[in-house]
């Protein structure tokens, strides 16, 4: 048996907001679209910034990388705030269960020879790298043109501080519940010669005026560093009996795969732009040519620390990845 609900049917006068029907035709819009497209003001600004009178409050010329229509880029993940916090809430919960599992089985104490030192000196100090990445992304959130781009940067910024906290928690677990390993990791970040190229690189990205170039610079390191620490080293951990580390790394490699979806989509949109595509390509290739050597040095330093404790071919991995990135924005022949 079924029961029938009688409901009042009133025909809607509109399917969604005018800007969306103008853009996509007369169809209902998703919550991502309603909350992300055309939200930023684009015209009739009242005052120029006191701290930068050359620009409007929101201004495409804050970067050399431009889109004719900023909304030609949309987040392939369709993330607006609600699904974003829901997804990250799951990530942090899953990470917490991993840590409590590691703690309950004392898996950090059982890591094979060399692993604890490698993690303490090469992986845990990356919490500072992530904190720097937070600031770089937050700058993009303010200065990017258009809500769809800045929204991705905004979430990325919050993710970075979240990842810094995940790594810090892992450091506390690795040390049996104290923060002395975190203190030592900070000293490494500040003083270890092999980490100085990375720290210098991050500090210099912070004074990069063009938010998008800074973001490309960050991505160059990300691609090598995340590949090294959370893919290459993860493989080595599984083969080398350090499964405890793999349980941690899976969360970071999972996040990075998700993050790269929008970064790649943005590169594609920049390169495909009818009006700015060529100049974007030149700006991107120029940024890679200028920044990749420093980025490679930076990650090679991290790799040297790992190679000093474990025979996992970390530096060779970075050299190979760097070579792959050199042709990133080269013109297809």
């Amino acid at each position, binding site marked *: 048996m079924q029961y029938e609900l009688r409901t009042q049917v009133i025909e809607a006068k509109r399917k969604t907001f005018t800007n969306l029907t103008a853009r996509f035709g007369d169809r209902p819009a998703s919550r991502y679209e309603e909350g992300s497209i055309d939200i930023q003001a684009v015209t*009739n600004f009242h005052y120029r910034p006191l701290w930068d009178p050359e620009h409007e409050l929101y201004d495409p010329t804050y970067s050399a990388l431009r889109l004719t229509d900023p909304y030609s880029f949309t987040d392939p993940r369709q993330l607006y705030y609600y699904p974003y916090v829901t997804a990250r809430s799951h990530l942090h919960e899953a990470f917490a269960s991993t840590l409590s599992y590691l703690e309950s089985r004392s898996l950090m104490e059982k890591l094979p020879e060399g692993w604890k030192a490698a993690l303490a000196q090469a992986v845990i100090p990356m919490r500072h790298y992530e904190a720097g990445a937070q*600031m770089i992304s937050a700058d993009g959130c303010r200065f990017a043109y258009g809500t769809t781009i800045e929204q991705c940067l905004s979430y990325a910024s919050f993710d970075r501080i979240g990842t810094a906290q995940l790594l810090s928690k892992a450091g506390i677990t690795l040390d049996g519940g104290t923060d002395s390993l975190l203190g030592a990791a900070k000293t490494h970040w500040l003083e270890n010669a092999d980490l100085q190229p990375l720290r210098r690189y991050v500090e210099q990205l912070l004074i990069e005026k063009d938010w998008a170039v800074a973001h490309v610079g960050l991505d160059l390191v990300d691609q090598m560093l995340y590949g090294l620490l959370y893919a290459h080293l993860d493989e080595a951990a599984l083969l080398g009996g350090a499964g405890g580390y793999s349980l941690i790394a899976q969360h970071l490699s999972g996040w990075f795969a998700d993050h790269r979806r929008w970064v790649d989509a943005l590169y594609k949109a920049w390169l495909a732009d009818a009006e700015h595509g060529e100049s974007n390509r030149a700006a991107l290739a120029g940024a890679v040519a200028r920044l990749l050597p420093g980025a490679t040095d930076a990650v090679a330093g991290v790799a040297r620390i790992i190679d000093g404790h474990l025979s996992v071919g970390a530096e060779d991995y970075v050299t190979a990845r760097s070579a792959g990135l050199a042709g990133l924005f080269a013109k297809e022949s």
Partner: protein
Amino acid sequence: MAAPRKLSMKQRYAALTHDLDWDFSYVDNAEAYPYTTFEGIKIHDWSKWEDPFRLTVDAYMKYQAEKDKRLYAVLDSFAQGQGHLSLADAKYLNAMKLFLQGVTPLEYQAHRNFSFLARHLNGPGPRFAALCQSQDELRHAQTEIHTLSNYNKFYGGFHSWHHQHDRVWYLSVPKSFFDDAVSAGPFEFMIAIGFSFEYLLTNLLFVPFMSGASFNGDLPTMTFGFSAQSDESRHMTFGLEAIKFLLEQDPDNVPIVQEWIDKWFWRGYRLLALVSQMLDYMLPRKVMSWKEAFELYFEQQMLGGLFKDLEYYGIRPPKHVQHAIDEKEILSHQVYWTLYQFSFAAAFNTTTPDSEHLQWLAEQYPDTFDTLYKPLWDKASRMVEGGGRHFARALPQLCQTCQIPMLFTEPGDPTTICQRHSIYEGERFDFCSDGCKWIFDREPEKYVQAWLPVHQIYMGNCGGPTVPDVLAWYGLQPGDNGEYAGSQEALDWAAWHTTSHAPAPTPVAGN
């Protein structure tokens, strides 16, 4: 050796947050933080910033995800059950149109500029607090859009809110307010938005809309309001911490902060003129009068409470506060009378108050309403009865600072329009009040840049020379504007509430 001691909550929080920061040595600090010196604020020790919440990212995500899950469940069920039909009256939605057109874009701007703070403040404590607030403000912008999106499907005035925020005359009031804050330096922004807007005036801005929703059957907006409450209390705490931090860092900061309080109180108070008329005129079911709200939320709570605490730092109440107090009996009436006459060019409807409404206004404003304002409404009603609904014919002059039409009256004389002016570089600029003139005179080079909608219409930058040209450029659709009585909205509402359309209250079991 004894087992190492585990971390206390406080140590754990520090390890997860402040300790992530480091002192730069490869780049110059002044180059890494280029925006925190030009305003003259002196900060000696950023670590003195207190985080009242000790919030970490995992806890933030958990709370926010749970809150949004509940909120979106309400939005979905309200939409599915045609909940809009149980509003007090379709007229109520004029308040929400104003909210979406005027307030939601400000939430979004706050999102962007708190991210500026999350990058450009030198200390990790305030940076992280600003980062959380930036996320919250994006949440508020998006949840407001999603909350009101369902009304847009059935009612006018919601459909082009961002387009209109950049263009329509009365929306340049909130837009210029926030542009003013975002174009200032980071410390002024903290005082303008973090303190003045989010703390000093939030109960007068945000709460009346949410309470109005609750009194008028707008369950989604009320749920949004409750859902935003815990975010707002964090924001209020940020604002209070910001002002205390600046005042405690150096005595030289005190006069700078005092001037910002003076400026941003008046800037915010003028913006609230739009809220005053919403409370007294737009809500079919009244929450409280503007006068009562102002006395409770501003005079008692802020002047009687907050400013007593700030005295310790050498801070006195805002410069033009007495003028605001004196205006509480007349403000909403003057503003709504103006909107009534110019609503042919607005994305909401206005109408003459009915007899019950007039009675309520007389009770709330015994010293002013019957003598000063009731005669205007009586006259307007007579004109409507005679078939000639009154609209203004000329465009109003706008105040150069707050951009509200020059409708306010001389202090102590509610029948004489107040007009002030300044000469800057040989040109005359007009103001609605001493407060707005004072703000202009501090920074004339800033306020001469203002995009004044009426000037722009006369300069031919708004679609063309005629009213229909301008309204088309505003993106108004038929029925969005003008008189409510007899409007498409009123007709639809009546039709949807005839007996044949009455909501079916109980499910009927069938076979």
